[in-house]
């Protein structure tokens, strides 16, 4: 199967008794836009690391279960081999820069150089990706001159340049303002429409409601919810696992309590659905 398959994954970080992931099983088919949600320490980042092979290859620890990427068990692949299929973006962009490239252009080209791509093709691909991520005017700037949001887009560009079939993002919008977040999600949606599988761990549920095809909720290392955003993001279970409904869902719930919500209409997760769901008393 192409995409991601996880079977009964349990993982302990080195030196810990408490498992960060407990018996997690899921399948994310190729081309899906899946969001992982959960409170802090629920296992979102660990799951992202498991898909990209960081766990257990770089963080070691005890792992049980199987993670397959495009049909291959990642435990028999090196991280560099996994990286050909899986791109990964982490929350702090500054720590993901190579540190020794002094232009944005070279930073994006770095991964392609490691792949051994021809020089002229690298240049062409980097220009394409910089245009896609809106960084073309910053190509000659030092990566350290960019704002946090621009650095995050740079890290994303560096990852996209490698054309991974799966892109895993661990809270990529943590440093971004709402406009920057919208830009990132729009870009991810575009990549997804071109066939890239997107897996994103994210706290901002409004954006997940708008862009994701599927939502997986984790609590204390276990998968507790899995389904379409409409069902998961309006579920009463969310509060029990330390999450809040989106403000649109909260308005819809309030409207229903006051008899202002259309009978039989499911709770909404977006601004327009909330407005459309309202009825006059």
């Amino acid at each position: 199967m192409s995409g991601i398959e996880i079977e009964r994954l349990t993982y302990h970080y080195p030196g810990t008794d408490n498992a960060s992931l407990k018996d997690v099983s899921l399948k994310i088919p190729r081309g899906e836009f899946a969001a992982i949600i959960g409170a802090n320490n629920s296992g979102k980042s660990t799951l992202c690391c498991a898909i990209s092979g960081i766990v257990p290859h770089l963080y070691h620890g005890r792992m049980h279960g199987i993670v397959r990427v495009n049909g291959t068990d990642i435990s028999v692949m090196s991280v560099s081999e996994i990286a050909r299929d899986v791109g990964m973006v982490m929350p702090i962009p500054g720590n993901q820069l190579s540190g020794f490239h002094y232009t944005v252009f070279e930073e994006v080209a770095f991964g392609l150089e490691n792949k051994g791509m021809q020089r002229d093709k690298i240049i062409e691909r980097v220009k394409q990706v910089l245009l896609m991520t809106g960084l073309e005017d910053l190509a000659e700037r030092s990566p350290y001159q960019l704002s946090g949001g621009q650095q995050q887009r740079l890290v994303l560009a560096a990852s996209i340049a490698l054309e991974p079939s799966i892109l895993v993002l661990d809270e990529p919008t943590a440093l971004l303002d709402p406009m920057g977040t919208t830009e990132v999600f729009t870009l991810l949606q575009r990549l997804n429409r071109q066939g890239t599988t997107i897996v994103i761990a994210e706290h901002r549920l409004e954006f997940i409601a708008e862009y994701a095809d599927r939502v997986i909720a984790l609590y204390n290392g276990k998968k507790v919810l899995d389904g379409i955003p409409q069902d998961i993001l309006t579920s009463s279970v969310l509060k029990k696992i330390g999450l809040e409904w989106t403000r649109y869902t909260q308005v819809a719930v309030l409207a229903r309590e006051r008899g202002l919500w259309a009978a039989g209409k499911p709770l909404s997760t977006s601004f327009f659905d909330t407005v459309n769901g309202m009825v006059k008393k």
Partner: protein
Amino acid sequence: MHPRASYPTLFIPGDSWLHRIHPFNKLCYILLTGVSAYLLPGEWLKDIVLLLINLGFLLSAGIFKSAWKLIWKTMLPLVLFMIPIHGILYPGNHTLLISLQWFHLYREGLLFACNTLLHLLILLVASLLFVFTTLPADLISTISQTAGSPVLAYLIGSPLLLLPAMRERIVTIQSAQQSRGLDTQGNFLKRCYGLFPLLIPLVLGSLIEIEQRSVALELRGFKSEHPKTFVRKVSDSRLQKRVRQLMLVLTICIIGYRVVG
């Protein structure tokens, strides 16, 4: 702002002849300078000539002012420690220069300290010529292309990256701790006491950063055994190669002379 101005290294942007020289030539020059300073016969005259040559290079590359700040900050503590220690305790001391009650300063120890300091100064200036005019990207790219080992390249190039980054981090941590009432001014004891709240977050933060950076590099195929290509081209020429070879031959000759002689 210059596009390279905020690059977190000691590199000083410029277009001098030193900036254009191949990184290996500059490394060979440091080696030759070090070997000459320590192994060539003759003491003061040879050392002063070497120092003047290096200072002349600093001036001609337009980096003297920046280098000067770093030189005195590095050398002053060494001068303050080495001169009294060797002046008093050097084993070959017998010609008394200054005697003030229990304090006896000897000529031989003083000369030894000055000579050692001069050697260190020559090496420091030669090293600054390298770090101030060489981009880590050029160095790492050159080593990767020549030795075929990006890990080795990163290992050699990383001190150029880490030290300025740590300096920036210290300033940030210091400001954060001061805003929470930590007193880092005042007498020696107070400053020592203030060191711990600075060092712990510095070390822990650096370790986390190193771990995350190594993961990020790995994810971008840094350690991949696949043959690599390079977008960046570091300028080299036949003349530079000849000069490099000449410096290496001279270095070997000096070492050989010393071993045989």
